[in-house]
């Protein structure tokens, strides 16, 4: 309603503005920085780079005789990088020998044992257990292989025999993760009931983390009135399948999906990334501060057409740092979205293109400490990102806070602020540091600056309690005075009135 009236006024003003129309064409081509952030209002805020491209490795630079062909998966253990060279049916192993170099160590093309065939067909993912066993998603051969560290066949995980899975569907395990007990979680193409869960002995143990199906009333009506032919043309009404998963160090699975629609994401009916507990519930924390409620963890807020790309961010992979911050890889626009453990955006960087730091079809993301490794399927390159000074400060401040060094953390956040004054996390981080140092006044100031109502309230509650405790005597006196003074005045007035009407005094006057 109110908007309607605003429009009326706007129309009225537009008459006047018509005359000044020619003045209003200001420069529209604003150069955006490589890295950016969304603030409380969802506005894009330029940011200094948190990550910079350390080096882009092509097949030649990696020392490969046979060039990489459509690599789709990767895995990092220590300083070893395992890349699934899907097109060449092999796993290539690289060692990070210095800060900016990977050298080719070995490749896995076959294994020993009773299982046939002994070679791979389009391996898409690899996972490595703590004991050094390899788990390989051998997509073309419809199996997940478990090999010991000497590449002897141990066991395989095959298509689950279950009523809920179509018997005719070809089993195509594409992404896998393993937990410490040796259970295997698998994303398979065409299976949308969640992650397939195998026990360590290879038995199928149901699905976990099925995506929510949203009941759509419009769809329901449509189905009632549509003809059979129309129904056949309609997209089948199914939950979305996951694209990738990552097992974090606590044993929770981060699963991401690119099969998302802009409207369901914005309505909060779909998630791009989830943290799945053993019961299959999503426990991802979304505590970010955003004018419209929780901060949306689905990548770009603006999904309009631009540069040939449209639609929401499509997360192809996710990786989780040791401090529970996580980075999602958007294969749609080639961007990386970093969020902290509370679901607040740390930074966004990257893009689609051919330059260093831009991608064409990035599919795999791994991390070595805080360095990020992106595997691009089309470019057949491995891009290594390392932290800049600014990035080191941001993560440093987070780590210091987690370690309980609040004063230090506050100091570091202040350093961050010198680099980037438009960084909401720095203000809130500084506020949290002050809050832990029991400097509630300052904490409140910083939270208020970035509209963090939850933390502000925490600080204010403490502040209020302190205030009341310090001034309890004064408060009691004021309250008593507020009650007693009107009471006293009333009494005096009453007495005066009684004196006035009293007969005893009437004649004495």
């Amino acid at each position, binding site marked *: *309603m*109110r908007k*309607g*009236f*605003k*429009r*009326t*006024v*706007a*129309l*009225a003003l*537009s*008459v006047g503005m*018509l*005359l000044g129309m020619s003045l209003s064409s200001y420069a529209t081509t604003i150069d955006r920085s490589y890295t950016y952030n969304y603030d*409380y*209002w969802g506005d894009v805020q330029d940011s200094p780079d948190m990550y910079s491209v350390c080096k882009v490795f092509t097949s030649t630079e990696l020392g490969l005789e046979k060039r990489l062909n459509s690599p789709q998966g990767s895995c990092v253990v220590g300083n070893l990088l395992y890349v699934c060279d899907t097109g060449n049916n092999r796993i290539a192993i690289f060692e990070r020998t210095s800060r900016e170099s990977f050298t080719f160590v070995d490749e896995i093309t076959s294994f020993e044992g009773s299982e046939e065939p002994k070679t791979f067909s389009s391996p898409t993912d690899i996972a490595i257990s703590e004991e050094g066993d390899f788990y390989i998603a051998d997509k073309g051969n419809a199996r997940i292989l478990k090999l010991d560290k000497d590449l002897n066949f141990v066991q395989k995980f095959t298509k689950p025999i279950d009523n809920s899975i179509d018997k005719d569907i070809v089993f195509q395990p594409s992404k896998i993760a393993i937990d410490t007990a040796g259970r295997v979680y698998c994303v398979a193409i065409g299976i949308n009931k969640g992650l397939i869960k195998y026990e360590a002995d290879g038995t199928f143990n149901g699905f976990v983390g099925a995506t929510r199906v949203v009941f759509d009333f419009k769809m329901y009506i449509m189905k009632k009135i549509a003809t059979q032919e129309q129904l056949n043309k309609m997209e089948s009404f199914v939950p979305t399948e996951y694209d990738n998963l990552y097992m974090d160090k606590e044993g929770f699975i981060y699963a991401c999906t690119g099969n998302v629609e802009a409207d369901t994401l914005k309505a909060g009916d779909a998630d791009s990334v989830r943290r799945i507990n053993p019961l299959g519930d999503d426990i991802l924390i979304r505590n970010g501060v955003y*004018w419209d409620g929780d901060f949306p963890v689905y990548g770009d807020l603006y999904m309009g057409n631009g540069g040939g790309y449209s639609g929401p961010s499509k997360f192809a992979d996710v990786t989780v740092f040791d401090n529970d911050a996580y980075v999602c890889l958007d294969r749609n626009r080639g961007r990386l979205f970093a969020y902290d453990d509370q679901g607040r955006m740390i930074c966004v960087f990257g893009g689609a293109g051919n330059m260093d730091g831009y991608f064409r079809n990035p599919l795999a993301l791994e991390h070595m400490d805080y360095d990020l490794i992106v595997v691009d399927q089309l470019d057949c390159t491995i891009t290594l990102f390392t932290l800049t000074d600014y990035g080191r400060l941001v993560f440093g401040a987070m780590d210091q806070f987690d370690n309980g060094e609040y004063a230090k953390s506050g100091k570091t956040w202040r350093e961050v602020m010198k680099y980037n004054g438009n960084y909401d996390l720095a203000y809130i981080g500084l506020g949290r540091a002050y809050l832990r140092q029991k400097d509630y006044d300052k904490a409140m100031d910083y939270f*208020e600056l970035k*509209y963090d*109502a*939850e933390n*502000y*309230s*925490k600080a*204010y*509650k403490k502040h*209020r309690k302190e205030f009341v405790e310090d001034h309890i005597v004064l408060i009691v006196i004021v309250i008593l005075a507020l009650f007693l003074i009107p009471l006293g005045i009333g009494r005096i007035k009453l007495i005066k009135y009684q004196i006035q009407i009293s007969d005893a005094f009437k004649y004495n006057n």
Partner: protein
Amino acid sequence: MFAALKSKENWQRYFKSLKFSLYCLTHPIDGFWDLTHEKRGSYSAATTILVLAIAAYVIRLRYTSFIFIQVYWEDLNIFMYIASVLLPFILFVVGNWALTTLFDGKGRLGQVYIATCYAITPYPLIQFPLMFLSNFITVDESEFYSAMYVISIIWVLFIGILGMSQVHEYGFGKNILFLVATVFAMLVMIFLLMLFFSMVSQGVAYFISLTKEMLYRL
């Protein structure tokens, strides 16, 4: 003009009529009857209440705790913001008067204005203290704020509806009917205004382009 301001009698009448708005809060039927029929209200007092209400509406943006109201200052046009309440208010007064005049409503335009202004008394009366109070409560206690806020609105609507029935000497059903009809009257007026403004803007654009054309040719 200034002589009128100096007259003590005028001031007394003003304050008396202003004070009468408090009586209307708790005795709406009686109060609004007296307001118009016994001339207990005044234009000056009514306008004061309106100004106070608008002031509360604007000032609360700045002085309410950010927990309850977050303002994107970059996009805020204070005139638009004021117009967003003032315009509906004027439309309501005019629309209501125009409609009820046709269906033997007794209220004159001035009386409808005074009664409507007196009806919004609860808004500034609650909003100003609420604004102050909001700075002393946390997110957990936000229900207090929203409850008080809703009360201020409901109170306005309640005495507004009752007040209108007294001004026009309508029964309850007829009163509600014409209040609903007033909303439609407002929509019609908005439509006409938009039509008017778009036609004016097109007219202006026509002459501008005509002048431009002529300047190019000459």
